[in-house]
């Protein structure tokens, strides 16, 4: 990580920590304030609901009184006292009475507890009223309307129910009625913005998030408070159990206060923190950038320069030499060092060049010396043969002519090779399959390898059929391969294994030629591609130079892997197009 | 007679209950079906077997049909109680559908169950005339007086009027009756509250009163009364009225208040008003075969176009309301209304008719006018 980045990171962390801390403190305070306000509002609504309950109970009691005093009920209880009473006459009485008084439930029950008429379940006439379910002789007296469960055919309802008794002689008629407690009842309440009230009864098909809270309250029979997340956001829900006269929880009142305001405020606080943090970070970036630039730029320049030098680009401009302080001193030292290195490299190059020319001259002298020696001997022989008889002189003269001709041809060959190396032809590129070139080159050595008088050399060709054609000069490439194959064979005088392999390379092809000869030392490896450098007794030493030149013309690269005693492997990579380089 | 109409609410429930009751308590098997039914049962149960005989609707222990039981016993079956481990249980039920009267018996022997039936189709109507025969009640006022009238009898231009204290002879003089003679009726014991009396005029004049029978020659020269209880001339054999009662008794001891004979189409002997006010049809053996309603009195009149009709009097629960006279035609033990009911201006205190007669006598007490009026009741056929 660069210094600049480190500085930037440090500044960012500091700014962030500060912003987070401040934001948390503010948010916590806001949350507390909202909780307090929410509790106050919930308590107020609960009180309002209780007052509304009390009003409902009073109304129900009054309406039941009216029903009990009505002509219909009075007539009913009187008729029931007769021996000729016909209950069927009254089975439809409760419905109109309930409708007239706005009650949801109304049962007329005789003194044996049998339902005479029911507004909510007309078909239940004749059955025992639930208030007599335990076999009691009389219904519990409920002058005030109490919360009770009412079993209906399709649901279990909850409502305020009161009872009135109407007496005529020895006969009694019980008037049991009330109103349903449901969400409609609660709809009449006036609630602050963001608050809602729901009534949860057993069996309600509510599947929303409040159900577990309601269930818990039913079990514990105690108030509870919880924050519940839903589709519209989080709500703060207070659950109050509503119990019947026997203590059983019949319904749960859920007062929900939307946390939207709090959420909005928290969101604003959060966003403010984020913005502040971003601004701080940005500011920190700027500051750190300015600070760092004064410090890190010279160092980076130095680093770049070092990298260039490492890559061999010695002509790098001395960086930041005019910088002050340690950085400037470092830059100036670096500049001096690169200058010295460049000078030394030039001297080295010159020396190598001189050494190469010396080597070339030595090799050339050596090559030329061989054919020149017999030429000198032959001239000496001719001089001496002048003293011989004409017939003998002719014989010696013809023999000498042949030797001179052969020697001159050799000289010609050396010169030609030298000339060839100095003036390699321009390659003519065409699409050629590398495998075909390899096969062709191998074929040329078939006879040589099959000769019985030499130790066997096993040829293993591993040619990848998926290798695609490349743009190459088939002749030159073939000559290069021939040289490599020849070197490999020459490296295994005792026999061995010659392996030639082709593979797809990125953007081209790779050709490996490996032998199991004696291998090369480090010095030999270093000078392998120097013209006229050879480890063989014969040869011009130009083969690998030519190979290198061909590879270079094809924009490829060649390198060797070898260790003494382990054989040698030449690797050639050639691009598909001669206009691209193999990297 | 036209009266102020009054809507009398009906109680179908009670009617259905009665009908249901009448249906539930299916009467004993009709005599003509018992034999056939017994034969079919005997074909399934071997002689000597122990047989339990029950009724289809017998939950409260109604008596089984004795006739059927006796026939089965006579053929060798032993009739036992249902809980006495019988070899077979026979459940009998009788009724009638639109085509026939029927008795059905369910015979269970172990797991086997067979059902047999005996039916008696109704006779096919012989007349091809339209079946709409309607009669109308014609009530002709005969006589009125303030004192109670028990019965009146017309003989030519003479009218005999029986009241609790005397038998009086009137002779027609134009549109009125002129009193001719009156003979006191002496009775030792006080008359009953619900006083009833009947006149029979044939070769002489017979007056039947509770515990007293008076006789006079046709010339009405004298009247002799004796404290003796004689059978009254009713459609049903009786021992007369006891001194302090208003009901008659059959030889079997069953009380009845009124009786009227029926013709063959009724497939019953006569109709009586029993001790609870129900009008029952009884067979020759004086066994009830059907209940057709309720009434105070009944009398049978032969209509001008033929056929015997049952006239019944009665009224609603309110004593102040008027009575009505209704006409039924009894066919195959079922009663069909045969005319429009006729209201009367008061309560009918007596309704008498001789057997086969074409007229009946009705006495009506108009409490508002404080008088009794006797009418001659006829049935006119309008179609």
């Amino acid at each position, binding site marked *: 990580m660069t210094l600049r980045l480190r500085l930037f990171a440090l500044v960012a962390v500091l700014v962030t920590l500060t912003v987070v801390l401040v934001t948390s403190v503010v948010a916590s305070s806001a949350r507390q304030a909202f909780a307090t306000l929410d509790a106050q509002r919930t308590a107020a609504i609960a009180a309002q609901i209780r007052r509304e309950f009390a009003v409902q109970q009073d109304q129900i009691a009054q309406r039941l009184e009216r029903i009990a005093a009505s002509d219909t009920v009075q007539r009913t209880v009187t008729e029931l006292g007769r021996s000729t009473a*016909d*209950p*069927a006459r009254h*089975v439809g009485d409760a419905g109109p009475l309930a409708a007239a008084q706005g009650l949801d439930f109304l049962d007329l029950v005789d003194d044996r507890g049998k339902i005479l008429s029911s507004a909510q379940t007309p*078909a239940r*006439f*004749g059955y025992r009223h639930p208030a007599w379910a335990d076999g009691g002789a009389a219904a519990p007296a409920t002058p005030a309307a109490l919360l009770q469960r009412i079993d209906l*055919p399709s649901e279990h309802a909850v409502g305020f129910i009161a009872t009135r008794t109407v007496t005529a002689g020895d006969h009694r008629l019980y008037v049991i009625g009330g109103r349903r407690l449901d969400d409609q009842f609660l709809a009449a309440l006036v609630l602050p913005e963001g608050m809602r009230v729901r009534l949860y009864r057993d069996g309600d098909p509510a599947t929303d998030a409040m159900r577990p809270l309601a269930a818990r309250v039913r079990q514990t029979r105690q108030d509870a408070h919880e924050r519940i997340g839903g589709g519209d956001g989080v709500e703060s829900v207070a659950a109050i159990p509503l119990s019947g006269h026997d203590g059983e929880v019949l319904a749960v009142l859920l007062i929900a206060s939307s946390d939207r305001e709090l959420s909005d405020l928290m969101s604003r606080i959060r966003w403010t923190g984020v913005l502040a943090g971003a601004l701080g970070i940005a500011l920190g970036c700027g500051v750190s950038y300015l600070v760092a630039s004064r410090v890190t730029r010279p160092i980076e320049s130095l680093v770049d320069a070092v990298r260039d030098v490492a890559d061999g680009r010695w002509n790098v401009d001395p960086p930041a030499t005019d910088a002050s302080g340690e950085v400037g001193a470092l830059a100036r030292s670096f500049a001096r060092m690169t200058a010295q290195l460049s000078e030394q490299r030039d001297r080295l190059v010159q020396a190598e060049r001189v050494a190469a020319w010396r080597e070339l001259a030595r090799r050339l002298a050596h090559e030329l010396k061989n054919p020149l020696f017999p030429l000198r001997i032959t001239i000496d022989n001719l001089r001496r043969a002048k003293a011989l008889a004409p017939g003998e002189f002719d014989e010696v003269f013809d023999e000498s002519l042949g030797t001179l001709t052969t020697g001159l041809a050799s000289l010609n060959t050396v010169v030609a090779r030298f000339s060839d190396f100095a003036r390699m032809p321009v390659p003519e590129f065409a699409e050629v399959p590398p495998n075909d070139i390899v096969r062709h080159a191998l074929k040329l050595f078939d006879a040589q390898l099959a000769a019985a008088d030499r130790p066997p050399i096993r040829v293993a060709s591993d040619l990848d059929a998926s290798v695609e054609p490349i743009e190459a000069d088939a002749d030159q490439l073939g000559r290069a391969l021939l040289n490599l194959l020849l070197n490999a064979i020459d490296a295994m005088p005792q026999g061995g294994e010659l392996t030639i392999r082709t593979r797809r390379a990125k953007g081209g092809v790779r050709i490996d030629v490996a032998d199991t000869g004696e291998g090369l030392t480090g010095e030999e490896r270093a000078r392998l591609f120097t013209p006229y450098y050879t480890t063989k007794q014969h040869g011009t030493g130009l083969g690998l130079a030519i190979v290198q030149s061909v590879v270079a013309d094809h924009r490829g690269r060649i390198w060797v892997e070898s260790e003494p005693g382990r054989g040698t492997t030449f690797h050639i990579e050639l691009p598909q197009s001669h206009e691209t380089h193999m990297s | 007679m*036209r009266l102020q*109409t009054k809507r*009398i609410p*009906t109680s179908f*429930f*009670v*009617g*259905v209950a009665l009908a249901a009751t*009448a*249906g539930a308590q*299916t009467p004993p098997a009709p005599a003509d079906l018992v034999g056939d039914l017994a034969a079919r049962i005997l074909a399934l149960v071997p002689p000597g077997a122990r047989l339990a005989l029950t009724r*289809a*609707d017998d939950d409260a222990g109604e008596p089984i049909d004795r006739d059927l039981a006796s026939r089965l016993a006579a053929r060798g079956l032993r009739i036992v109680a249902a809980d006495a481990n019988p070899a077979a249980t026979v459940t009998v*039920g009788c*009724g*009638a*559908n*639109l*085509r*026939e*009267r*029927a008795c*059905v018996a369910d015979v269970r022997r172990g797991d086997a169950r067979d*059902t047999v*039936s005996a039916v008696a189709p109704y*006779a*096919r*109507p012989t007349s*091809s005339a*339209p079946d*709409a025969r309607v009669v109308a009640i014609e009530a002709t006022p005969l006589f009125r007086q303030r004192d109670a009238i028990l019965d009146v009898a017309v003989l030519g231009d003479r009218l005999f009027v029986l009241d609790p204290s005397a038998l009086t002879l009137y002779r027609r003089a134009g549109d009125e009756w002129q009193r001719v003679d009156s003979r006191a009726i002496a009775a030792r014991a006080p008359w009953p509250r*619900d006083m009833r009396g009947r006149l029979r005029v044939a070769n002489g004049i017979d007056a039947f009163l509770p515990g007293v029978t008076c006789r006079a020659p046709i010339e009405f020269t004298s009247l002799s009364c004796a404290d003796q209880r004689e059978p009254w001339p009713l459609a049903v054999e009786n021992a007369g009225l006891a001194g302090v009662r208003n009901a008659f008794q059959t030889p079997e001891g069953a009380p009845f208040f009124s009786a009227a004979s029926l013709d063959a189409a009724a497939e019953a002997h006569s109709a009586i008003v029993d001790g*609870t*006010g129900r009008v029952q049809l009884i067979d020759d053996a004086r066994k009830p075969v059907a*209940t057709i*309603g*309720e009434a*105070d009195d009944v009398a049978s009149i032969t209509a001008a176009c033929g056929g015997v009709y049952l006239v019944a009097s*009665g009224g*609603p629960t309110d004593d102040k309301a008027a009575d009505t006279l*209704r006409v039924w035609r009894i*066919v*195959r033990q*079922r009663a*069909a*209304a045969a005319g*429009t009911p*006729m*209201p009367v201006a008061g*309560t009918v*205190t007596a309704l008498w008719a001789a057997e086969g007669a074409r007229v009946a006598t009705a006495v009506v*007490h108009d409490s508002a006018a404080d008088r009794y009026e006797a009418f001659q009741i006829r049935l006119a056929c309008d179609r």
Partner: protein
Amino acid sequence: MRRFRFVWLAIASAPLAAAAVHGARAQYGGTLRVETRANVHALDPTATPLDRVDAAAARRIESLVFDTLTHVDPAGGLRPRLATSWESDRGGARWRFHLRPGVALHDGTALEAWQVAAALRAVSAGWSTSIDGDAVLIESQRPRPELPWELADARFAVAVRRSSSSVVGTGPFRLERIEASRIILRAHDACWSARPFLDAIEIMMGRAGAAQLTDLESNRADIVDVSPADARRLTDHGLRVITTRPLQGYALVFEPHKADAASDRLREMFAGSLDRSAIANVLLQGRAEPAVALLPSWVSGYPEAFAGRTLTRTAKAADRLPPEQRTVSLRVDSADPVARLIGDRIAVDAREVGFTVTVQAPAGLAPRPDVRLVRITLDANIPTLVLARLVAELGPRALSLATAEQPPPADAPLAAALAFERALLQGSMIVPVVRVPDLYGLADGVEAFSGEPVDATGTWNFANVSLHAAARSRGRP
């Protein structure tokens, strides 16, 4: 002298009516205004509307316009009508019906034997008809000893077809016109059974129950349909209500998926939970009768206990069933208010013994129910014919699920009819509940010269109806 305090009652076998009394003779003239819920768009004995209520109303009206050869007497027995007598030979495969002479059709022409034969041939319930002088011969391949009873059915009324859309009859009234919601009948002056008292009958159709009651109470209608729950209201207001014998039955019919042996106990317990007495006597205000058999005794001739059985009602009986069998869905006809009342009570009764019951009264598609409350029509005829019609009404599927037995032929003995009815009810696939009568409210001034305006078997006896003076003055429609 009144000896007892009792309620003056009508005869058990005849419909009840208040003793509204007019001692005067019946008066001619006037238009009788009748209202009904049903909708009848054509009067043709050979056509049957799909809706049962409409079909029953059509038959009632057609009985005023067309005559059958024979007629079932509500008191029992078969009466002559267009045929004065009849006899059969060859075991009942060939019948000869002697036609009443001097019968005039509504268009004034005389009814001829060939017309009667053609009318019966048009119905063609498996017979061939021919004439022999003034007699109509009916021959069938199989013996039909009960053919005279069959011919009493309104389907076999003699309707003489004048054109593809015009039929005439011989009844006391002729059809003047049929409108979308009204039928006008006019008195047939030359009716063989004598001209009716009324000049015309106007039948308003498609009237809702509440509207009919209002019209009756405000004197805008003379005779209206009444439901059992409303009959008491009319009688309390002093209006008359005519009740026929129970002619409509309600029965539970279980669906095929509840016909398997595994559901035997479920059906039995569900049937056992019924409180028929409460339905008949309280819910339907005593205007119905509990039914344990399909046929009432006045149709069958034997007590209902022979054919059906009253299962014992046991508290919490359903607790002995597997939980998945305790839930039952009951479907009732949403257009039948009486069925809804009964269905609600059945549900309450079943819940009391432990079932969980949902009542469906859908107007459209709904999930398949477990059991249906169906309405069946009882004819006034012999038991075998009534059973055959009843089985046809229930459908072949219900029959095949209830029993493998086939309905007995018309001439089968009574015991065979009993055995078949018993077999139908044995497995509790079909459970009779109650029977309800037809109820009619009568306005003041409507009198019947003979019998009641509607007889015990539901036949409209309007030929014998006369209007009191006040109603008569309303005149022609």
